[in-house]
């Protein structure tokens, strides 16, 4: 069930994916957005490894209640997450997690946002409404975030100030455009998050 076949079990990273230095530590950033908005594309665009998938079983109401051996509770949902990796330097590995499409499950997996530097909210202008709940939840959890509009060629283009109003974003939250397929563009979106975090840190110490 949970066991992969023997091939999967023996499989590890390909040799080029092995070379994390000893003594490094991890840090993470989360990419959130609706289904099909390009989260995995973005992760893949900047990752030094092929994006991988990790998963978790989420029990909604039945945590600690369902103890039927051999039967996974009906309240159980598998949440899969794609992620990639960027070696920042010899001491620091940045992991980038793309949360799953069903937004109501994102926040059940507490470990996703716990300890994260911040989040990039990826927006498709054809389905802006998907982001409202995400933004509210991030604000509630005090997870700092920037909003990146994925520029799908077929999606309507709006001026950023209009989008800011539509998303009810405060002026301080960075809003950028981004092509999730393009490495430099995704890097810049991540940079805007880091610069924003620097600003927040400076405000805090001021």
């Amino acid at each position, binding site marked *: 069930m949970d066991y992969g076949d023997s091939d999967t079990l023996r499989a590890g990273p390909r040799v080029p994916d092995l*070379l*994390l230095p*000893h003594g490094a530590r991890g840090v993470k950033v989360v990419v959130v957005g609706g289904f099909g908005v390009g989260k995995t594309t973005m992760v893949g665009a900047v990752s030094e490894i092929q994006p991988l998938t990790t998963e978790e079983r989420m029990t909604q109401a039945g945590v600690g209640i369902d103890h039927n051996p051999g039967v996974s509770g009906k309240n159980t949902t598998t949440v899969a997450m794609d992620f990639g990796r960027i070696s920042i330097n010899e001491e*620091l590995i940045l992991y980038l997690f793309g949360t799953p499409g069903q937004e109501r499950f994102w926040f059940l997996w507490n470990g996703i946002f716990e300890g994260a530097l911040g989040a990039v909210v990826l927006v498709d202008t054809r389905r802006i409404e998907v982001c409202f709940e995400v933004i509210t939840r991030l604000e509630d959890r005090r997870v700092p975030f920037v909003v990146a509009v994925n520029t799908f060629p077929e999606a309507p283009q709006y001026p950023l100030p209009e989008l800011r109003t539509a998303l009810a974003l405060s002026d301080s939250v960075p809003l950028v455009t981004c092509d999730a397929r393009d490495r430099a563009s995704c890097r810049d979106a991540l940079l805007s998050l880091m610069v924003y975090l620097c600003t927040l840190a400076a405000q805090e110490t001021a």
Partner: protein
Amino acid sequence: MTSDNPKPWEEGTPVPLYVITGGEGTSAKAFDLVTLIATRAEPEPSMQPEQASILTMCAYPLSVAEVSAYLSLPFSVVTVLLSQLVDDERVEAIAPVPVAAFPDRGLLEAVIHGLRRL
């Protein structure tokens, strides 16, 4: 990391791993997705195959998320396997960089510098 967990593993309850996942008393809290795992001992023939695989693949450190992905096992199942390995001192778990409400400026500058080189 896991030594202060009161119930790291319930001996004598031969339930499938996926039941443990949803059960209480797992050690999931001790590991983050980006906790790095580094092997400190050779695999032994008597070990569970999954644990032996972890020791082989973490000869160079890998995050718990990567271990979960390569083993095709849910995160919390992997943390149970890892808890035992940590208790047995077969692997070392390297905690992520702690991120306070506002992360350290030096950390952010390092990330910015690293991203610019992409």
